[in-house]
């Protein structure tokens, strides 16, 4: 479905973010090609794509940091170009490359961010304590930001981004620099924030982590949204199915036969247990099973395997175009 920016009635939608026909041009190249999508409230959208696909530009347009060439971005019912300050009150953004005020303490950094985002002064001390607590910085409140390790700086940046309890939180590589334990804590925090009603868009290259907490996946490739759907639907709608064939006893012929069949790829062979990708509908799958049985292979199990986010992503990227770029 393609939506026209001028004709579309933004007020009729319940989406937290509504993007229509968004075009962004750099001086010598187009970065975003008429991107349109909605982000539902209370969702965590994993924004994925190759380097240079336009993810950061898209996030910056959503955050009212860049002016697009054309199209519209509406956050919480407010047009970003018309109400940039109101948007910033409702939005938190952690950039991939960020800076901190090194000479201020953690408490002062958080307090400044709360004040700059309109948190009333009576609520600020509690907001500082809570943000620091959530990011494991409670015992470092009086430490200068410049003396923090890279991981702790990342945590402070996340704490700053959420201190004013934004409705929409944009995170660009939030786990960068965090150790495994901190990453797990961050994942839990993002889920908690979502449960509290926040909507999140997270851009990251670590797909396994995104899968832990994301509800939706948006794939951006060459400045276009090639996939945007709930994670389970994305797996089901994948153009290629991952199938698992299990034999009663190991048989080296299985892999050989599979390699010779059209539509089969990505064969992972353990002789008795072979996983592979197959581009075909249910009838084609039945024909494939028949072919294996007729070849004398002792097939005891033949079933589709649920694709994970990385599988879906790689398939979409390999196949080039995906959907129509909109949901």
């Amino acid at each position, binding site marked *: 479905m393609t939506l026209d920016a001028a004709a579309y009635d933004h007020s009729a939608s319940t989406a937290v973010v509504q993007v229509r026909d968004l075009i962004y041009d750099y001086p010598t190249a187009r970065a975003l090609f008429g991107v349109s999508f909605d982000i539902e409230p209370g969702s965590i959208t994993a924004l994925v794509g190759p380097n240079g696909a336009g993810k950061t530009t898209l996030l910056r347009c959503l955050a009212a940091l860049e002016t697009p060439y054309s199209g519209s971005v509406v956050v919480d019912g407010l047009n970003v*170009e018309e109400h940039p300050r109101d948007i910033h009150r409702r939005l938190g953004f952690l950039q991939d490359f960020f800076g901190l005020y090194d000479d201020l303490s953690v408490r002062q950094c958080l307090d400044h961010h709360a004040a700059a985002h309109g948190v009333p002064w009576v609520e600020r001390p509690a907001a500082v304590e809570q943000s620091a607590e959530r990011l494991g910085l409670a015992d470092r409140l009086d430490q200068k930001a410049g003396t923090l390790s890279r991981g702790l700086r990342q945590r402070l940046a996340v704490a700053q981004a959420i201190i004013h309890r934004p409705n929409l939180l944009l995170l660009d590589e939030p786990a960068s620099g965090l150790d495994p334990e901190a990453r797990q804590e961050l994942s839990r925090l993002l889920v908690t924030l979502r449960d509290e009603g926040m909507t999140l868009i997270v851009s990251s290259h670590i797909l396994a982590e995104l899968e832990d907490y994301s509800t939706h996946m948006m794939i951006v490739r060459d400045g276009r949204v090639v996939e945007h759907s709930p994670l389970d639907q994305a797996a089901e709608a994948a153009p290629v199915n991952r199938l698992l064939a299990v034999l009663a006893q190991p048989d080296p012929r299985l892999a050989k036969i599979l390699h010779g069949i059209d539509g089969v790829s990505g064969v992972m062979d353990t002789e008795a247990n072979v996983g592979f990708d197959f581009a075909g509908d249910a009838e084609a799958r039945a024909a494939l099973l028949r072919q294996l049985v007729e070849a004398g292979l002792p097939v005891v199990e033949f079933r589709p395997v649920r694709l994970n986010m990385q599988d879906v992503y790689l398939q979409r990227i390999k196949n080039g175009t995906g959907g129509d770029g909109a949901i």
Partner: protein
Amino acid sequence: MNPEFRRNLLLELTLHRLVAMPLILLLLYGAAGLIDYGDTVSGIAGFVILILLVAWGSRLAADAVLGEVAGRTWDSQRMSALGPWSMSWGKLAGSTIFVWYGAALSIPAALYGGNADLFELLRLLLVGLFSQVLALFASLAIQRLRPERLRFHVTQAQIVGLVGALILWNLLKWDYTDVVYWYGFAPGNVEFSFLSGLIFTAWCCFGIYRLMRAELQFRCWPVGWAGFTLFCAVYAAGFMPGRISDFVVDTPGGEAILQLLMAHIVIAGLTWLGAFAEPKGFVRLRRWRDTIRSGSPREILSVMPSWTPGLLMALVTGALIVVTALLSDGRYHYAADKYLSAGLGSAGIFSAALLLFLLRDIGIIHFLTMDGRAKRALLSALVYFAALYALLPTILFALDLEDAIPALVPSPMGNSVVVIVPVLLQVAVVGGLIGWRWAKLARAMQSA
């Protein structure tokens, strides 16, 4: 309290600094007092205030935004909920609070002794404030112009602040007994120049506010620069005919033409400066074209280049000059000054030529900056302008081809063919070059 001002207070007014500044000043003035009681202390205090407010203060103001850009905190500031005015004064007052603290501590010392001059102190404070305001304004303009290149930006902005301070310092140094002739009034020089300084400082503050609005992603109509241009035109025209009033006082329309010419020149100059200093490029031009085709007047105004109102104003003043010249029947016969006589006689041609040169220069600036890949495009433009306005005329002069100089420099001398036709051809050539580059970039964008 303004969060930005408060953040700066935390950074600038540390306990160590609060204690160190008065101690050092006490030692300095104490030593001066021991050497020579009275005037020396006052003189040194004045010098300290000047150094603190102008030299150091302009540096701090220039670094207020650019330091954040370098430290990657500027985007986070842009994403705060602070409005442009809060951000502007928070940065200006906050970043320079320490030098104002030092200056405030020095005021008693500056007023100490027999020759203490309150106006001299006010002059110091105004020049200091102006240098800081101008440095912050320049830093924002530079940041918007070349956000990708950070080298020497702070120094460049500070130099602008220092040059502005030097000019204002000299303007404010006029003789107490002298008067200014301005639109028939004759106010005292000191009062007039001080008030002018205050007004230009206020305009600079307004400029900071406008640039901050743009940085914070507010829609910006080009009214700020247009308003300043109009103010400067009216302000400068008031000084005409000034000292040459004796020559034109009996000439019908002579005074009006001189005032309009002054306004026309000021408008052309500031429009040129606006075109040079604002962000440019193919994307911006194309967006402007597209909004003209399909957008609302509001959208058109929000992407309109700042030079367009200036160009319109120059067109209006040029037309007024032509009409006034025609109405006054071209009766200019001043034996005392043949150049002035000739200049007034061809004021219409001169104003048209100036307009065309302005158009050509704006075209050259856009031609060189359209391609975003071009490095140092603005520096190239300056080199070309230096060649066109200085080098080539000098060569023509050396070759005894003075009559051809109006083809390269707007001149009140010469006939309309020599003055208008060459610059008209240059405008056509530059227009053709822009069209060629536009088509090339449009093709590249489509194939990207």
